């Protein structure tokens, strides 16, 4: 298919449809409203279910009901809305339901602001709801990648029967970039959803989709089964990108999403000035590419790992956990709409090159 110029939010919507997901529930919130508006136009055309729910609490639970049919379903929201879904997300994870949730993040905490931020990293990766569960978390850095990950996410959700979350900052939602949709969408085959979905107890025992296990043994089993799934994800689903990683780099930048693109510009410009810096961009934030980062960080040439985020050093914890003290991990970031510019990134890199042992001003 030819490339078309599309707003991120609309591209995400179209990608879902292309991946065979024609069911969408939502509640309006900036900066992702275009997804719902697009779906309101498109889903009647393709014969799917579109519903604007009364709240994010309700929408989270509509997903729960919808996913129980075994059909594909997703929602999109932004930070405060995602907080309101935490109970239902925990329930869906506990009940092993495949759903896709997109968080076009805004600055927080609270009402915060609507400009780009990456401050929901912990919520997404550590589980903002209660109990022993995780989400599979993907972070695109371009609209094309948002499309690709969106299309992949339904398959992953079904492969693991686990909610998948895609997080992007407001730029991912609001930017227009040229995108291409595949002619045909193919996926590896999976066992049929009919094996677990709720379809009426005709010719079989009644089924229950639930997260209630009053017998502690069963609950314990469920929690460790989830844990095993996450271990399997770590073996099979790690995704990342390396950019200009070379033996002469002294600094390894770790950054994700749009922030990583900004780092790329900085790196490109520095390269022109003869300063060579590498970038590691996690695409899966959970499972986190810890081993891969550790491997890069431990290379002899690396003096410093530099984490750059639009949050107060959230992903940095995962990088620390990956590097485990093998190299110093420094941080630079701005948050809540003050997107660090390529120049600001360059400045920090140069500082670190000059004084490798200094801490950076954190912003």
């Amino acid at each position, binding site marked *: 298919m030819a490339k078309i110029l599309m707003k991120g939010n609309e591209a995400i919507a179209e990608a879902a449809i292309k991946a065979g997901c024609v069911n969408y529930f939502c509640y309006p919130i900036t900066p992702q409203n275009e997804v719902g508006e697009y779906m309101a136009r498109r889903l009647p055309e393709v014969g799917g279910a579109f519903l604007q*729910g009364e709240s994010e609490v309700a929408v989270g*639970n509509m997903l729960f009901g919808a996913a*129980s*049919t075994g059909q594909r379903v997703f929602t999109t929201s932004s930070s405060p809305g995602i907080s309101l879904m935490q109970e239902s997300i925990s329930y869906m994870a506990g009940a092993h339901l495949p759903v896709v949730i997109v968080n076009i993040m805004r600055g927080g905490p609270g009402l915060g602001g609507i400009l780009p931020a990456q401050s929901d990293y912990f919520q997404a990766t550590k589980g903002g709801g209660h109990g022993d569960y995780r989400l599979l978390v993907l972070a695109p850095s371009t609209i094309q990648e948002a499309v690709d990950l969106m299309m992949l996410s339904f398959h992953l959700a079904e492969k693991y029967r686990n909610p998948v979350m895609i997080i992007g900052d407001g730029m991912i939602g609001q930017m227009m970039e040229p995108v291409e949709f595949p002619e045909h969408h193919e996926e590896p085959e999976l066992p049929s959803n009919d094996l677990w979905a709720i379809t009426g107890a005709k010719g079989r025992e009644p089924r229950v989709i639930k997260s209630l296990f009053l017998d502690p043994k069963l609950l314990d089993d469920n929690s460790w089964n989830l844990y095993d799934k996450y271990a399997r994800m770590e073996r099979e689903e790690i995704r990342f990108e390396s950019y200009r990683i070379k033996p002469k780099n002294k600094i390894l930048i770790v950054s994700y999403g749009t922030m990583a693109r900004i780092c790329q510009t900085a790196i490109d410009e520095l390269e022109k000035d003869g300063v060579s810096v590498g970038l590691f961009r996690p695409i899966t934030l959970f499972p986190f590419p810890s081993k891969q980062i550790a491997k890069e960080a431990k290379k002899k040439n690396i003096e410093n790992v530099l984490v750059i985020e639009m949050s107060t050093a959230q992903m940095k914890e995962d990088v620390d956990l990956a590097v485990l003290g093998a190299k110093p991990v420094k941080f630079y970031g701005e948050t809540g709409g003050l997107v660090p510019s390529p120049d600001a990134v360059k400045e920090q890199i140069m500082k670190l090159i000059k004084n490798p042992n200094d801490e950076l001003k954190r912003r």
Partner: protein
Amino acid sequence: MNEDARTLFSRPESLNEVVTHYCPGCTHGVIHRLVAEVLDELGVRENTVGVAPVGCSVFIYKYLGTDFLEAPHGRAPALATGFKRLRPDMMVFTYQGDGDLASIGMGEIVHAANRGEKITTIFVNNAVYGMTGGQMAPTTMPGQVTTTSPGGRNVNDTGYPIRVAELLSALVTPNYIERVAVHTPQHIIKAKQAIRKAFTYQKEGRCFSLVEVLSTCPTNWGKTTEESLDWVESRMVPYFPLGCYKDPETAEVPDGAV
């Protein structure tokens, strides 16, 4: 007169052969049976999904022979909506207590009813939070002592009990809403008729339907079975009048709703 040797009454097929966890005398059990009988009579058990609430009836999925979803507290109507929108060919019902539906789940039930979701809600009003040990519910009677209204519900502080059937009937969307009780055999018979009507309307794809059932909680009311059944009649029925509040057959849509 009739001379055959036969069973005049036995458990309906949709009611599993399982001993419930309900307290002795608790009328949740009666309501379960009525739902099971209606599922049998309409022949829809195998094409039905129930949505269990959080409340004493959280285990309803063990007792009825249909597929089930177990909803977060109060959110059963949202799950039911999500399910039904994708499977309009299936029957979907929620079974909810008064804490579940009228307190934490108020937003969800009002909106499901207002959208006219083609689902059926069995709303069990026992004027108290049963499962958590007897706290005040939005439906707790004025003066009723509960663990969180130890001096009796004070209407100046916490208002009057919410009459769900009346409240939902104030919505314009034409739905079926009826209040029944199960404290005497006569009321049980009427309750069953209402439940059957509710499921039938759904089967016909007509409207949202809700049956509010006045029920007992001997344990948390601190009463014997007999006292509890009497209390439904003497205290609850006067405040929660029984009857049909709304029927799509007769519902009127107001001016201006072109």
